[in-house]
């Protein structure tokens, strides 16, 4: 049976078919759905870990126990997981271990566009790169074979277009490999210096063997056509090349670390022009040039920023583009915004009003940086808000501490905010941290986390309380507010930023998109009472419009949260929530 599968769904299918038993991941676009789909198979144990480092360590443990194991993460998640990954490369595996890292060229939903292939080179790990959903499924299985044959963790690299595109995939049955027996082997598994010296030699031998494998494997495929032009490419770029130049010769690379040398050299000799097409950095191109293989075009044609497409390749190659008509007037942008009824809106309206310096973090609340709230001063990486607030206030002193806060979500707090809070208590900080607890991991599309009381498989579990963690970390000033009550939220923030001690305010209200959060009837504006002062516009709600000097509410968008009514001094908003 053939089914239309999302790339991420196909990776999960590959895990199922390969007999994978253990999956641990932290959500991150564009990798999230892999683990969600994997959780749909009863034969696969799947869980959300608090972060990518714990996920990888858990999977390494499961591999040591003899099972085929797996983690998925986005590219920046690999930074968090890099510590165990680099040494797992030395220890190798017992049961096969595959780690999927999903890059985001063009930064559809990310803070940078780092190229994960550098990690494969640096950690000396084989890396496979599928082009579409069918290869996602197939390459997962190939990655397990490589992992077990070469005694190494294997990496699977996807990108947004592969992860979030769908194509037809023929479904196969699951194989059920027996657990490999666990045997104590400190020489291999205890990464102490004396052992690691020996293991490094093994890693180099393994890379030599993988280099020989790269020359002969069908993962790297030569498709000879017109020899005037020869493209070297991989992943989604292969599909753009085939779309733009269906007649040309192509070297399609499926194993992108280590890369073949002689196979590429032989291909280059068969064609008149060799063009390397790869998104982000020139990893393949540099490899070819280093080995003295002719390259006639690469990063000089395509650059190293953003995504490619069939037209970008046509343009760079000097081929005519399809004719396109232009709308001859400026079209206003449509940036993402907080949803109607979002609990973060009330808090950011208060922060914007108080004009505080806000050290921000990664999540839906990053949207507090957009107009009209403009309330966020910095966003760096998961958990950075708390460390940055500490350094910022240490340098600028108590006066700055009275004018600044860190803002971090519940899931991000569990991921890497806890150590930041420990640091505040330990190093006598006076910073104030706002933990935005909306009872779910929001931006990635509603995943459970250690605070929600449910596992990935929807089983009840202990709901960790953020206030307990903060108190146990040595923070004495911990309180909870509801951001829907903007006056109470403002009063709490004023008190805590004035305090000469570190403090945490848990700003708690569930995400408006959660199924159990029921929308209230939409509000309406009484035009006779509206004075046109635009106070309601300050909350930045997509459901409020202003025409002919009066505010009005789009009833198809409004969920009746009533923040606008709290802003209105003239009682012009009617209906919705009583406040």
């Amino acid at each position, binding site marked *: 049976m*053939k*089914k*239309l599968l999302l790339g991420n769904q196909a990776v999960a299918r590959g895990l199922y078919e390969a007999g994978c038993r253990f999956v641990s991941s932290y959500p991150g*676009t*564009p990798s999230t*759905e892999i683990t969600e789909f994997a959780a749909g198979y009863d034969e696969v144990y799947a869980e959300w870990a608090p972060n990518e480092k714990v996920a990888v360590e858990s999977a390494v443990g499961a591999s040591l126990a003899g099972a085929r194991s797996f983690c998925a993460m986005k590219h920046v998640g690999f930074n968090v997981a890099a510590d165990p990954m680099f040494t797992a490369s030395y220890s190798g595996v017992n049961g096969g271990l595959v780690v999927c890292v999903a890059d985001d060229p063009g930064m*559809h*939903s990310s803070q940078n566009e780092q190229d994960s292939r550098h990690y494969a080179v640096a950690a000396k790990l084989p890396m496979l790169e599928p082009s579409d959903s069918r290869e996602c499924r197939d390459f997962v299985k190939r990655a397990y074979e490589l992992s077990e044959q070469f005694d190494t963790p294997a990496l699977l690299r996807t990108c947004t*277009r592969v992860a*979030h*595109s*769908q*194509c*037809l995939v023929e479904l196969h049955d699951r194989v059920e490999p027996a657990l490999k027996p666990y045997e104590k082997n400190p020489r291999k598994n205890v990464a102490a210096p004396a052992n690691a010296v020996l293991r490094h030699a093994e890693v180099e031998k393994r890379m030599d063997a993988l280099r020989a494998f790269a020359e002969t494997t069908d993962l790297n495929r030569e498709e000879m056509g017109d020899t005037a032009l020869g493209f070297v490419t991989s992943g*989604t770029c292969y*599909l*753009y090349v*085939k*779309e733009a130049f*269906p007649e040309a010769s192509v070297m399609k690379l499926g194993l992108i670390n280590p890369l073949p040398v002689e196979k590429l050299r032989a291909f280059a000799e068969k064609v008149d022009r060799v063009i390397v097409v790869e998104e982000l950095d020139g990893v393949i191109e540099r490899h070819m040039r280093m080995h003295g293989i002719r390259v006639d075009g690469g990063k000089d044609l395509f650059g190293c920023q953003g995504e490619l*497409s*069939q*037209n970008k390749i046509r343009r760079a190659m000097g081929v005519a*583009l*399809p*004719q*396109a*008509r*232009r*709308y001859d*007037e*400026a*079209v*206003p*942008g*449509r*940036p*993402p*915004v*907080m*949803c109607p009824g979002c609990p973060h809106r009330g808090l950011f309206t208060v922060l914007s009003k108080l004009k505080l310096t806000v050290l921000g973090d990664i999540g*839906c609340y*990053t*949207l507090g940086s*957009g*107009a*009209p709230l403009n309330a966020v001063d910095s966003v760096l990486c998961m958990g950075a808000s708390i460390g940055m607030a500490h350094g910022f206030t240490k340098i600028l002193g108590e006066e700055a501490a009275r004018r600044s806060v860190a803002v971090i979500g519940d899931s991000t707090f569990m991921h890497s905010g806890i150590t930041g809070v420990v640091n505040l208590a330990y190093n006598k900080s006076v910073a104030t941290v706002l933990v935005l607890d909306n009872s779910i991991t929001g*931006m*990635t*599309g509603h995943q459970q986390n250690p605070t929600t009381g449910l596992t990935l498989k929807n089983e009840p579990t202990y709901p960790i309380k953020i206030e307990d963690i903060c108190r146990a970390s040595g923070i004495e000033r911990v309180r909870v507010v509801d951001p829907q009550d903007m006056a109470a939220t403002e009063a709490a923030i004023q008190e805590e930023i004035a305090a000469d001690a570190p403090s945490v305010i848990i700003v708690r209200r569930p995400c408006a998109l959660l199924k159990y959060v029921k929308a209230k009837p939409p509000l309406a504006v009484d035009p006779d009472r509206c004075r046109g002062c635009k106070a309601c*516009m300050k909350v*930045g*709600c*997509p459901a*409020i*419009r*202003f025409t002919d000097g009066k505010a009005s509410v*789009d009833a*198809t*968008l409004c969920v009746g949260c009533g923040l606008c009514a709290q802003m209105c001094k003239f009682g012009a908003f009617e209906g919705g929530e009583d406040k």
Partner: protein
Amino acid sequence: MKTTSIMIVGVGGQGTLLASKLLGNVLTQQGYDVKLSEVHGMSQRGGSVVTYVRYGDRVYSPIVDEGEADYILSFELLESARWISYLKQDGVLLTNTQKTWPMPVITGAASYPEGILEKLSAMADVQAVDALALAEQAGSPKAVNVVLIGVLSRRMSDIPESAWLQAIEQTVPPRFLEMNLKAFRLGREF
């Protein structure tokens, strides 16, 4: 058969993903090679969203580029203006007449352009439909996506109506089925 390219454009939250799911379901059952590409995550939060759908004997790229779309199915008027450069010279724009203000318009930093539909109609083959009114007539403003799929289905004459009806039955929850079938017919017969 050559590859046909469709784009579904709109505003995050309008239900464009259900529309592409229905389309993918229908095209798969017709035996075509099909590719779909969509963007998840941050841009879904009320931002401009686009889904690419391509089908034929053998489809390579999962995305549609400028000047390549045979059909653009647009859920919102400003988005029609934004994506019109992706329409093929002889392509057809099928657009909802609904307007959803983006944040720069709400804050007053920009204004919602006047006369979009007139301009687009002068540039290209355009069919405009008040899909919200038809969805409300069917029983729910949320059925805008199925109304628009109905509008598109009329154009794709190679696919029998029964295939669409079957895909809707397989995709929407039973308690909303009757309403969605009504929405589909209102769009198809518009």
